[in-house]
């Protein structure tokens, strides 16, 4: 098969799309005014932001006054969690509930708060990478300030029962934040119907530029500021507005959420074809639920080889992908997400994540399936670990999370 160049790392970032770029361009050199300025050049931009805010809100089922622009997903997560924690600590609420496999923007923020007197409950996830709303209900205490559970996982693509978790939180009178960075544009979001109090999103995951995001804050939810300074964003988030970014975000979220059923219908069969095809390779396992999964996410562990070498070989064949191996992160531990599913280090080291969007085709899937077995064979042929697996009759345990010896 002829070599193809395939960008299969949409969970990392996406390209700015042509309509988004065109929408933004006037705001760099023509409409460059500061929205806080009094003259026309400023007022026009203030109006542009008001319009953009309304459009972003409409895509989430929110009111425009509930949308606050930020520099991205990490800032939104930090603001939501620290802002609520700071506000509710005064009322004696110093407990936060989250899960073990959140993005580091959430986990490290929670760890920071632990150092400042907060208590955090890290809910375990099921072997399929899902959280049961009953776990949340059981963990809620008198002093719980916030529940923060991600909408869709960035590595294994599992989609959490957000509406059910939202309902549990509402019933218990606890605020609910969700990091929806991977979910926006992939699943239908309605913050009111799903009882979401705070929601983080990031533009560059759906064809807006990097450095622009938003936090939805339900009307009536009070939280402290994270970025102090001028009175922008109704006095809640200081800093001159990233006008081109805001315009781009509004255009991108409209396009991303315009027809989610059609996108799902197109990508799901391609995802399943890839999963089925890759699982044909001996010594592989699918990470995360088969069904409660983003339509453009595949995450598979391949035993006997290491993730980074797999990525380098795939790149050599034109396929850009990602892995949860230690070597790609610069630490000795493989991904906390894969470990949270119960995977041993050996199984987690050889993981491959393919994440794709609407431009992904059947031919792309066929190409990946045509090159991958050869790459795996080649890397295994030089792997002493694979040699040991073969010679000593080592195989997966029943749930494919660990490697065990014959008879164990």
């Amino acid at each position, binding site marked *: 098969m002829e070599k193809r160049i395939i960008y299969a790392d949409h969970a990392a970032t996406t390209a700015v799309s042509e309509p988004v770029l065109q929408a933004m361009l006037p705001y760099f050199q023509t409409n460059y005014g500061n929205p806080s300025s009094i003259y026309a050049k400023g007022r026009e931009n203030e109006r542009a932001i008001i319009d953009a805010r309304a459009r972003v809100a409409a895509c989430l089922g929110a009111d425009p006054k509930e949308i606050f622009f930020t520099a991205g997903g990490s800032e939104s997560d930090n603001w939501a969690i620290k802002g609520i924690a700071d506000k509710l600590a005064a009322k004696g609420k110093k407990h936060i509930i989250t899960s073990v496999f959140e993005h580091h923007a959430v986990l490290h923020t929670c760890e920071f708060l632990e150092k400042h007197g907060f208590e955090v409950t890290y809910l375990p996830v099921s072997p399929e990478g899902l959280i049961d709303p009953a776990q949340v209900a059981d963990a809620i205490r008198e002093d719980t300030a916030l529940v923060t559970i991600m909408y869709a996982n960035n590595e294994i693509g599992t989609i959490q029962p957000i509406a059910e978790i939202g309902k549990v939180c509402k019933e218990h009178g606890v605020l609910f934040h969700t990091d929806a960075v991977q979910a926006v544009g992939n699943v239908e979001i309605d913050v009111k119907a799903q009882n979401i109090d705070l929601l983080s999103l990031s533009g560059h995951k759906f064809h807006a530029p990097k450095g622009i995001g938003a936090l939805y804050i339900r009307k009536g939810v009070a939280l402290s500021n994270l970025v102090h300074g001028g009175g922008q964003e109704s006095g809640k988030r200081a800093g001159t507005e990233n006008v081109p970014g805001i315009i781009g975000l509004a255009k991108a979220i409209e396009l991303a959420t315009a027809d989610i059923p059609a996108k799902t219908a197109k990508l799901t069969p391609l995802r399943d074809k890839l999963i089925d095809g890759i699982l044909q390779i001996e010594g592989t396992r699918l990470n995360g639920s088969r069904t409660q999964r983003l339509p453009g996410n595949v995450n598979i562990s391949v035993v006997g080889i290491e993730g980074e070498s797999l990525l380098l070989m795939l790149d050599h064949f034109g396929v850009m992908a990602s892995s949860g191996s230690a070597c790609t992160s610069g630490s000795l531990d493989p991904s906390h997400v894969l470990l949270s599913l119960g995977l041993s*280090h*050996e199984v987690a*080291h050889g993981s491959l994540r393919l994440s794709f969007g609407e431009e992904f085709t059947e031919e792309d899937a066929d190409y990946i399936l045509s090159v991958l077995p050869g790459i795996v064979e080649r890397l295994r042929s030089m792997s*002493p670990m694979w040699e040991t697996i073969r010679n000593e009759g080592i195989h997966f345990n029943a749930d494919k999370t660990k490697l065990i010896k014959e008879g164990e």
Partner: protein
Amino acid sequence: MNYSEKVMDHFINPRNVGEIENADGVGEVGNAKCGDIMKMYLKIEDETITDCKFKTFGCGAAVATSSMATEMIKGKSIDDALKLTNSAVMEALDGLPPVKVHCSVLAEQAVKAALTDYYQKQGIDPEPIVGKVPEMEEE
């Protein structure tokens, strides 16, 4: 990860991959838990390494450093092979990203582990000659 062209070359086209049957010395270092295992095979005649092959489970740098190490000791005397340092391997590859330096250490240790095995097979205490090679960690 910013790898040099030489690292990428030794990763995509690794030299001396494989095993040597009836090797005179075999050494294995690293462990699967940390994500790196290197296995080095040596054929030794008259104190000279006449052949050298390797198998590696690990990242791009792990494969490239093993490949480079085999190239650097093949045809050399045992004495020269014992002088191989991780920094020499790194230099020969035009450097490694800081987080990958341990891969070059592993390559140096793999050579030493194979020579340790060689001396043990000869009934000679390897420690005064090779020094101490860290044992493979068992889980």
